[in-house]
């Protein structure tokens, strides 16, 4: 008699959780994430120095945070998406780990699901950590207060009434974008073994899209760069939910494609 489907699902879930724990332990043991976090933080603080050259009616920590993230992250996120956790599958393939793990009875679906979830968790921790520390680090230098330099970007009312919530909303956009960039690398690493090519792929595609999809045409609606310059996004007719939805949709597409492509593959070497 075949086992009931619910039992199989539960077994698969346990298996994914075990693999995910193994994946996260490996990910956080490496120093790469810490180094990238320090690099990101230093770059954001460099942007804060640049903020002092800009005129505003009142300098506040929230305005500084929005200024530096808007200045630095549109360039940094594709890089971090690929270099932080985007190579997770490519590294395994280089040392022949997928075939070894699968010879121990782990299904390809379990393996790639754990890889994808591990990459997402790593990326979320990295970007949320950098942004959180940057916001806290800016607070001793500038008083807490509303934004006045920009019109408030995507949600002007929220920026004026609750700038902290506005900063957190903007952070959510950046985290979703970083996860989506990581998905590009993960998808490519199913076919490409070269680690550098895999890590650099989000940057290359991002720049290609930037120039291919003219920002002064209707194509701006799908231009990734325009969806990261949040202080100009309102002028392009975007909304906060629309921008988050854009990155979530891209991320879902890349991760689903990666899981499907890996699960249906025949050769895991």
């Amino acid at each position, binding site marked *: 008699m075949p086992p009931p489907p619910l039992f199989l699902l539960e077994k698969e879930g346990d298996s994914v959780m075990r693999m995910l724990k193994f994946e996260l332990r490996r990910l956080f043991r490496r120093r790469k994430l810490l180094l990238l976090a320090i690099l990101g933080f230093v770059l954001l603080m460099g942007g804060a120095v640049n903020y002092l050259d800009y005129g505003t*009616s009142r300098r506040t920590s929230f305005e500084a945070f929005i200024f530096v993230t808007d200045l630095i992250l549109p360039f940094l996120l594709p890089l971090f998406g690929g270099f932080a956790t985007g190579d997770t599958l490519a590294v395994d393939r280089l040392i022949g780990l997928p075939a070894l793990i699968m010879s121990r009875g782990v299904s390809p679906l379990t393996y790639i699901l754990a890889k994808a979830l591990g990459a997402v968790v790593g990326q979320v921790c990295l970007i949320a950590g950098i942004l959180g520390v940057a916001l806290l680090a800016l607070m001793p230098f500038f008083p807490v207060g509303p934004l006045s330099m920009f019109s408030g970007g995507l949600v002007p009312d929220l920026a004026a009434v609750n700038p902290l919530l506005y900063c957190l909303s903007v952070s959510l956009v950046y985290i979703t974008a970083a996860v989506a960039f990581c998905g590009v690398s993960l998808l490519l690493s199913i076919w490409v073994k070269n680690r550098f090519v895999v890590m650099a792929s989000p940057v290359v595609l991002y720049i290609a899209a930037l120039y291919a999809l003219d920002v002064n045409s209707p194509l*701006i609606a799908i231009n990734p760069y325009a969806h990261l310059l949040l202080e100009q996004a309102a002028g392009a007719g975007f909304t906060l939910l629309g921008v988050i939805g854009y990155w979530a949709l891209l991320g879902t597409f890349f991760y689903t494609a990666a899981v499907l492509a890996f699960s249906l593959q025949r050769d895991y070497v």
Partner: protein
Amino acid sequence: MKARCIVAMLMVSCLMATVLPGWVSAESLSMAPLKQTEGVSAELMGTRDYDFDFNIPARGTEYDSRTFTMSASKYCIVQRTDSNYGTGSFRVVDASTLAPLGDWVVIDRGDSALIYTNTSGQTQYVRIEYSSRNVLSVHAVGWFKFGEFDD
């Protein structure tokens, strides 16, 4: 590992706190006047507009070739009339030394903003410097509007 991460972050924070220039006087820095997009015309005595039509470079800064004379209490507003995607940053510099006289002011397409008021009490000869915070150059069109506040 967690403890090491936290210690490393704290160390970087402390390091940045010591090397960040001007953090003590961040609030005492000379601020640019408030951005104005409306209601300026009510205060004008005599204004004069100068057209501009140039590409704001993606990297580095450029200067408008013209030198403007600003008598005491004169202000300068930049009005962008184009609808090209991308903000531009503008500021007023001394015409001979190119030393900045005001802070950068970010202006989006179709917007206008006050970038400088001559509060030195003397006539100044100035030029306009422009730059971009984008990865793409921006084609900006509009006017530099010079006038005096009625006080």
